[in-house]
């Protein structure tokens, strides 16, 4: 196991690369997903409000 993490002595280079890429990609995906959901809900809420006030 520790051999796997040591990566033949290059763990200090390989793991930060994978870690940083993971953080960047997860953060971007999370941000994009949350933004999309928040705005879609907001649009639906406003549409419902508009219908209500027209009745």
């Amino acid at each position, binding site marked *: 196991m520790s051999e796997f993490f040591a990566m033949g002595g290059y763990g200090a280079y390989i793991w930060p690369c994978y870690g940083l890429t993971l953080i960047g990609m997860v953060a971007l995906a999370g941000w994009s997903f949350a933004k999309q959901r928040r*705005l879609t809900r907001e649009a639906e809420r406003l549409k419902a409000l*508009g219908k209500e006030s027209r009745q």
Partner: protein
Amino acid sequence: MHYLANPARFVSLADRLLPWLAAATALAFLVGLPYALLFSPPDYQQGETVRIMYIHVPSAYLATMGYLGLGIASAVWLIWRHPLADLAAVALAPVGALFTGLTLVTGAVWGKPTWGTWWVWDARLTSMLVLFFLYLGYMALREAIEDPDKAGKAAAILSLVGLINLPIIKFSVDWWNTLHQPASLLRRDGPAMDPSMLTPLLIMLGAFSLYFVTVILWRIKAAVAAKRVDGLRRARAHAAQRARTAA
């Protein structure tokens, strides 16, 4: 009506595709990561550091594809005024910039054990650096112009010129590199890659591409919804104004 119909149809299509895309992305990484980190053999020259390739090369690929997509979307927006194209361009820029940044960082970290220094003015890294500046310029221009419609069009003009320039930049950097490069540098890619390394690379390329499409679709959805929210808010304010003047 045409204006609304297209994005609405797009969103319903995206909604149908997205669960599958997200699942496929997760699955591809679930297969690709163990392959890249564990099951693939170390390189006979570079040892374990070759594993950085499995994220560096897909990042570089998406960084380039992202700018290509940005340029094509800009052209579609400028020529045919297709409303989705501008939203696609907005969605693409930060994603492309992220992958360009990741390419630079993973390239630098990879350079330390292979070349003994963090940064080498190698042709590919240098081209990526210029590409990074192109993305930054696009986003800066878009940010600086207040009117969103004009910002989109001005940025589209810039990205089109950038797209024309991209192969010239690549060519000039390669030319410059052969002029200055010390011959002793270890090349990172052999002419023919062993299948034991090509397979995980292709799986990771697929995984990154699936991720890219998924995130882009989310971002386009967000941009469509933002436009709708904006329109609905304005309509409400307008209605309230009319009610007040009528009373």
